[in-house]
């Protein structure tokens, strides 16, 4: 009947009404269908299964850190599949790129939570009963308890056995025990006491709250959404589906949920470290000045968005997750008409903001135009005449581009990545290996394409920010349940559940003999200290100012051992 028993429902409690181990095992041989079910259920809700499922869960979570995950990095997964044509598809079949929504990961945690419910419910019922029942009956031989001691109250103190037990009950009650006085007027009165019901309660609350956290996360997945949008200085974003660059709705998302607020990026300022040599050019501060409107009709509001400091609007939170340069270009086509004009978002690749960019000009006539290349905020030539970026601030901005003409392939209705140019069906005009060489532009300059295909000019630089918009209705619930869980956990781990009994009897020579014993339920390294504290209180009550006759051996108690029965004890024991 230690709590190391295999099954939770019987682990902690040997209260009357809970089935003992013997009864449980008796069911096993008579299997039958119902018996099988019961057996399976008992297996699933056993402590050992919970332990295994927990360990499986830990192991199963690991692949998600070894392989790229689709929900986080879809493009990396695609690349991985390209790079590993043999193993990739197999891994994909095993759902290694969707670990946390995979069948096997879900199976483990769903089983774990079923097992958890199967544990918590019977335990909660048993505990509810235990909380209402009286402390267990006083054992016949208190000396068998791990903490045990005796006191002798001299006859001249006039403390009868019944009085002593009334005192003991009062003292224990004040110490937080629930007490029952037994046989107060008999010749062997005793007190049964128990405390620390909050320990088990905490355990139940902890486990139950984990279900709450899981449900909250699920609610977030069902009704939440998130979207991404890059916003160049001067641009306005309206919270509608069409205005997002990408959008991931929850399973039960409804577009009517979106409140049509708007956000304009007025100015984006970056401060770089110019002070410490070891970190020169490292970003120190990103600051996005926004003008927001909670609805099309409401007043404008100035707000500042920073990293680690989201802006809340229309029930959503807006986060600053990236930034970069958007060179402003004008492209004229072969007919001399402006076919494209405006900022082009470039993707920074390093700390010096060496940024890749792609310009697609589908409106150019007679042939469509495309450009790929990079933007350098501060360009420097190396000895071979190759430009590289040396600083993240725009001290010497430069565009380096190759150009193409032909069919961009945009009309085929296929979704195309805006950041890559599919050169199939295109003819290259400019490039390092071509006679016309690559296009190199500084602000204010323009370049005429070979073969009369048009021209491109570099008009200026703007910055852009990458915004994430999140709505998660499960978030608050998850936090609340997590906090409750922690409270339960602390209670469960650090509160001790103890039982104490005190019994008295009167020696033929008139002395009142008192013995007490304590028992821990669960791990309790302070049981000896509790025994000593109770002893001290009893002594203070009856023996203060007197020499105490004692059988308690402090050394033995320190080792958690008990003292064999002393001479005084014989008279009160085993009536």
């Amino acid at each position: 009947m230690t709590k190391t028993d295999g099954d939770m429902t019987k682990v902690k409690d040997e209260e009357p009404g809970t089935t003992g181990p013997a009864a449980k095992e008796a069911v096993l041989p008579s299997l039958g269908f119902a018996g099988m079910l019961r057996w399976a259920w008992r297996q699933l809700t056993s402590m050992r299964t919970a332990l295994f499922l927990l360990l499986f869960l830990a192991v199963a979570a690991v692949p998600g850190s070894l392989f790229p995950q689709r929900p986080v990095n879809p493009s990396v997964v695609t690349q991985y599949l390209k790079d590993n044509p043999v193993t990739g598809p197999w891994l994909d079949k095993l759902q290694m790129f969707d670990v946390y929504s995979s069948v096997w990961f879900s199976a483990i945690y769903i089983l774990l939570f079923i097992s958890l419910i199967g544990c918590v419910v019977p335990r909660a019922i048993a505990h509810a009963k235990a909380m209402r029942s009286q402390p267990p009956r006083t054992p016949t031989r208190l000396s068998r308890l791990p903490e045990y001691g005796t006191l002798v109250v001299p006859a001249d103190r006039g403390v009868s056995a019944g009085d002593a037990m009334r005192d003991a009950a009062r003292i224990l009650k004040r110490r937080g025990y629930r007490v029952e006085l037994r046989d107060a007027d008999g010749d062997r009165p005793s007190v049964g006491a128990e405390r620390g019901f909050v320990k088990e309660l905490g355990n139940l609350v902890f486990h139950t709250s984990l279900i709450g956290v899981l449900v909250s996360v699920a609610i977030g997945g069902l009704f939440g959404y998130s979207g991404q949008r890059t916003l160049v200085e001067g641009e306005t974003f309206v919270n509608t589906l069409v205005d997002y660059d990408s959008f991931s709705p929850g399973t039960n998302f409804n577009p009517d949920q979106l409140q049509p607020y708007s956000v304009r990026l007025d100015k984006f300022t970056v401060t770089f470290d110019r002070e410490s040599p070891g970190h020169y050019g490292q970003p120190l501060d990103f600051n996005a000045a926004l003008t927001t409107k909670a609805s099309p009709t409401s007043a404008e509001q100035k707000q500042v968005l920073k990293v680690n400091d989201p802006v809340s609007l229309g029930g959503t939170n807006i986060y600053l997750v990236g930034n970069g340069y958007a060179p402003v270009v004008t492209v004229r086509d072969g007919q001399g008409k402006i076919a494209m004009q405006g900022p082009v978002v470039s993707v920074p690749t390093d700390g010096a903001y060496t940024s890749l960019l792609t310009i697609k000009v589908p409106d150019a006539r007679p042939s469509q135009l495309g450009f790929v290349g990079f933007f350098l905020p501060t360009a420097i030539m190396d000895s071979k005449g190759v430009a590289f970026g040396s600083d993240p601030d725009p001290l010497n901005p430069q565009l380096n581009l190759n150009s193409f003409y032909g069919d961009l392939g945009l009309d085929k209705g296929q979704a195309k990545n805006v950041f890559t140019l599919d050169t199939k069906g295109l003819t290259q005009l400019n490039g390092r290996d071509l006679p016309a060489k690559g296009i190199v532009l500084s602000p204010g300059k323009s370049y005429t394409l070979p073969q009369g295909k048009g021209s491109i000019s570099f008009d200026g630089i703007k910055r852009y920010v990458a915004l994430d918009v999140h709505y998660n209705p499960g978030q608050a619930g998850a936090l609340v349940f997590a906090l409750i869980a922690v409270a339960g956990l602390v209670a469960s781990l650090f509160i001790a559940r103890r039982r104490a009994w005190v019994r008295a009897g009167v020696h033929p020579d008139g002395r009142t003999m008192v013995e007490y014993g304590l028992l821990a339920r669960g791990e309790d390294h302070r049981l000896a200290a509790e025994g000593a504290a109770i002893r001290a209180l009893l002594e203070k009550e009856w023996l203060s100012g007197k020499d105490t006759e004692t059988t308690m051996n402090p050394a033995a108690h320190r080792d958690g051992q008990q003292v064999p029965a002393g001479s005084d004890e014989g008279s009160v024991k085993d009536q």
Partner: protein
Amino acid sequence: MGINETLGQYSELFMLLAGVAYTVAFISFTIDLARSSKTTKAVEARSAAAARVPVLAGAGASAGMGGSSGPEGLAERPAAAKSSGGGGLTADDSMRYGGERRVVARVAVALTVLAAVIHGVGVVTRGIAAARVPWGNMYEFCTTGGLIVTVVFLLVLTRRDLRFLGTFVVGLSLIMLIAAETAFQTPVGHLVPALQSYWLVIHVSVAVFSAGLFTLTFAMSVLQLLQSRRTTALAAGKPDRMPFMRQVPSALSLENLAYRINTIGFVTWTFTLMFGALWAEKAWGRFWGWDTKEVWTFVIWVVYAGYLHARATRGWTGTRAAWLSIVGYLCVVFNFTIVNVFFSGLHSYAGLPS
């Protein structure tokens, strides 16, 4: 607020001095362990007579208790023999300080305190030099983490005689310092915007504190495994191959104390995980996204939850639980080193040149 380069250089000097002090402390602890095998022979002879009385008392007690009606507490699990059962242990199983004077061990502790003070000055000056908390990159995680490990150890030492762990703990702090100075050298600098948050202060300090606790329990669990092997071998009449383990308490008391420290570590790690989630919500808009670092934080949490369950599961206490505690710590180390250095993810702020 500016960077103070000069102070930063002083900080590095203090770190080096601390490293020297740790080295001497480490050697002292090792000598103490080695010498103990000699001294304990003498102690044993002396205590043999004295031991007879408590042994008798213990025997009487357990006879009286009987097997099945015994108390429920794990602490009282009778399976593992008490220290007096021929293990030749000198350390008190309650791990309180005994009367035995261990001069070398005292010197070692004094040296550790000295090292910790110098180390602390190094960490604090680093923080002042950078005008922020000194845990913003791998160098600082290592130097501050090593300090916390030592301080946690010294704090526990005030209550319990864990000097037998000294070689282990001081050795680990030393390794962390050396790693910081060789692999992760980073000059004093400002924080990148992603780290500019009060959550850095809260989340990382709790994480490092938990790691300090787990370091202690890891060492204890390793010793517990060694000790239980040794006890089994001795009981089978084999010669004592690990005489230095005499200084170490019994496997059971190691397990019990490790459990108590692990419960605290588990709670603080739960906070680490929650604070991390709160920070992630502030920084990236979602409180959980299975980023590499989040995955490993979760794995560690689940492993220690498994450990707590193991301690309540029949057949899983003792050696198996110790293995879980060890695995948990290996995950902590993995999370701190390999994940920080080699895995890309949102948490790639190790401050290493890429």
